[in-house]
């Protein structure tokens, strides 16, 4: 049995029973961005939230009850990325004029609209169009300082949900139909060119929901282009086939290089992390020092960015020395050795596959890890890869300078990679 109250306590979910539309001041102050989950009742909103962020097994969602009021969840304990998810109850009629919707859309960067592909699709689609119209009419989609006109546009994401039984072709057809229909409805109010809506076919019974949520989150990260660029450099210099920067608690990928994502590869990388964590927990029992903060399921990871920032680690590591140090565990105390010491302490894992590929896991901090797929022949020079990953890690710690991504922060960074050609 899943005890939902325990979930709520654990992850700090706030249920508002009196006035569902009053802003919570604690959230307001922090200005953490907000994702609003909308959709008809029973479309799967609560399930999505619990499966992705609270690790609920998909078949347990059958026991979830309909959500009667607006529910706000602060996701910062189960993810690197700080944001709130507000679930708008499907039961409530939001066009009812007695109903005060001011505040709901404040600071709302993303709306995820969930359409149940198995039930009432036309109703759901027309409700979506009505919602968009309402938002446009009230100018809710412009977020930020309206006087300065420094506004950003709200993201519209549509999850065509519960598609696990459809073939790829079936999903495509359904998505085309829905996109077409939404455009038609929006054009009735001349809104067809106003919004760029993205569509995803999802199901909690496979990885599609994690992939869709990954893309939703990526759009919220202002530094995404830089992250992707850094990962592209990493791929090029270390001859990597595919790399993901994972939010390890949610298994969402915060960034990836610009090559296309294959479902199989993402799934395997995600399972890899799960296995590492499960495995590590078994053999870390009884070894955990009590003075360290321990997170319930991932106690084995200890290093955070904070260490690095305090220690001011020199980014210019002397490569030759460093690689040597990696191989011989000598105990000098000069600067470059200190850096290699850090390298050795990072949690890592390697899986060799019979396809002559290697899966490599490299911890970035408490919340983030790199997972990549590399041909075995290019992995034999592991020192180089570790060196590049370590530099990447330090570069992104400069970017974020925090243990959580602050979605509104800007940054500058320097990043230094080597490849084999440079080494020679």
């Amino acid at each position, binding site marked *: 049995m899943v005890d939902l109250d325990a979930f709520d306590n654990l992850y700090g979910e706030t249920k508002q029973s009196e006035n569902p539309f009053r802003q919570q001041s604690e959230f307001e102050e922090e200005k953490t961005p907000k994702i609003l989950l909308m959709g008809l009742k029973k479309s799967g909103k609560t399930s999505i939230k619990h499966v992705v962020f609270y690790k609920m097994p998909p078949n347990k969602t059958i026991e979830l009850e309909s959500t009667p009021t607006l529910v706000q969840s602060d996701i910062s304990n189960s993810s690197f990325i700080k944001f709130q998810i507000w679930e708008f109850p499907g039961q409530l009629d939001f066009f009812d004029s007695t109903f005060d919707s001011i505040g709901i859309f404040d600071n709302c960067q993303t709306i995820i609209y969930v359409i149940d592909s198995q039930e009432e699709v036309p109703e759901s689609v027309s409700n979506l169009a009505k919602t968009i119209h309402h938002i446009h009419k009230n100018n809710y989609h412009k977020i930020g300082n309206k006087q300065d006109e420094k506004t950003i546009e709200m993201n519209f994401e549509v999850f065509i949900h519960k598609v696990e039984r459809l073939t790829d072709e079936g999903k495509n057809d359904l998505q085309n139909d829905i996109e077409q229909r939404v455009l038609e409805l929006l054009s009735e109010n001349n809104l067809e060119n106003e919004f760029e809506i993205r569509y995803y076919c999802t199901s909690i019974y496979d990885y599609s929901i994690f992939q869709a949520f990954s893309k939703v989150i990526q759009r919220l990260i202002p530094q995404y282009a830089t992250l992707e660029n850094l990962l592209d450099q990493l791929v090029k210099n270390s001859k990597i086939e595919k790399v993901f920067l994972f939010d390890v608690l949610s298994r969402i990928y915060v960034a990836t290089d610009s090559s296309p994502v294959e479902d*199989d*590869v993402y*799934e*395997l990388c995600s399972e890899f992390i799960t296995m590492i964590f*499960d495995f590590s927990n078994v*053999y870390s*029992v009884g070894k955990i020092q009590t003075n360290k903060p321990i997170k319930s399921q991932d106690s084995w990871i200890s290093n955070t960015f904070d260490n690095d920032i305090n220690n001011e680690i020199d980014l210019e590591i002397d490569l030759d020395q460093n690689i040597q140090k990696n191989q011989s*565990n000598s105990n000098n105390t000069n600067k470059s050795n200190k850096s290699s010491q850090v390298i050795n302490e990072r*949690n890592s894992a390697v899986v060799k596959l*019979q396809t002559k590929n290697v899966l490599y896991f490299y911890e970035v901090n408490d919340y983030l890890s790199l997972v990549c797929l590399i041909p075995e022949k290019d992995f034999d020079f592991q020192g180089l890869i570790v060196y590049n990953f370590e530099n990447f890690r330090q570069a992104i710690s400069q970017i974020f300078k925090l243990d959580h991504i602050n979605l509104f922060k800007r940054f500058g960074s320097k990043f230094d990679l080597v490849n084999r050609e440079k080494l020679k």
Partner: protein
Amino acid sequence: MNPTKRKILLIGRSGSGKTSMRSISWEFNFKFMDCGGQDSYLENFFGSQRDRVFRNVEVLIYVFDVTRKDTEKDLNYLESSVFALSEFSPESKIFCLIHKVDLIPEEERENVIESYKEEIMKFLSKFSEILENPLKVTCFGTSIWNETLFLAWSKIVYSLIPKIQLLEEHLHSFCQICDAEEVVLFERSTFLVISASSSKTYQDIHRFEKISKFIKHFKLSCNKAHSPFQSMEIRNRFFTAFVDSFTANSYILVIISDPQIENAAISLNIQVARNHFENLVQKTRGNDDNALVI
């Protein structure tokens, strides 16, 4: 090695849990006969097909449903099996699984299993004088809902390995030579524990079952992505773990907690041990053709 020679028979009445047990108990890499449980079907096994079924049996597993009170019929089937085995596979071992113990309230469980065991053993003891070879029977209380089934199957696999004591001694010295915290051998396809050696005591007595489950699950994911698993290395501040294929039918897990020990050194040790164990296995294979070869 002749593949037709190794066979596990899984027998029990309809509904006793054989099919669900098999899907949880991992595919064995040798011949596995799940005899249908319907009475008419069972009659056949002891009738016309008797010699085909009971020849070359390595192990017979009889599944009792602990919630069924009419054990008479089960005991009759067991009796027929015992006689058929003594005729066609006199060296075979018998395991009785007293299954679905999760349905017995926890405080009574121990007693119920014990009295069930007694009933079976008492019943079988009647035949010990008639039979030529001594009966080798072991009973376990099991359930698909907890670790008991894993433990029972691990013991069954263990019993199938020839010269297991010798193997364990070698594993133990390997553990010491490597300065390992723990070394575990897993059967390749089922990932059941064959043998283990530890240099410290662990609180978590169910860790083998967990590790086995995690790795098996991950191996399936690898297969699904069309990139079968080969080996693995995990390194964190508490330990370094190696999982690698070992002899032809086994995987080895080595846990090292001393951070001074180099990965390369451990890999090398595993390589050396692999050859050593392979030789050991070759030797035992010669005189014991029927056995499960690791």
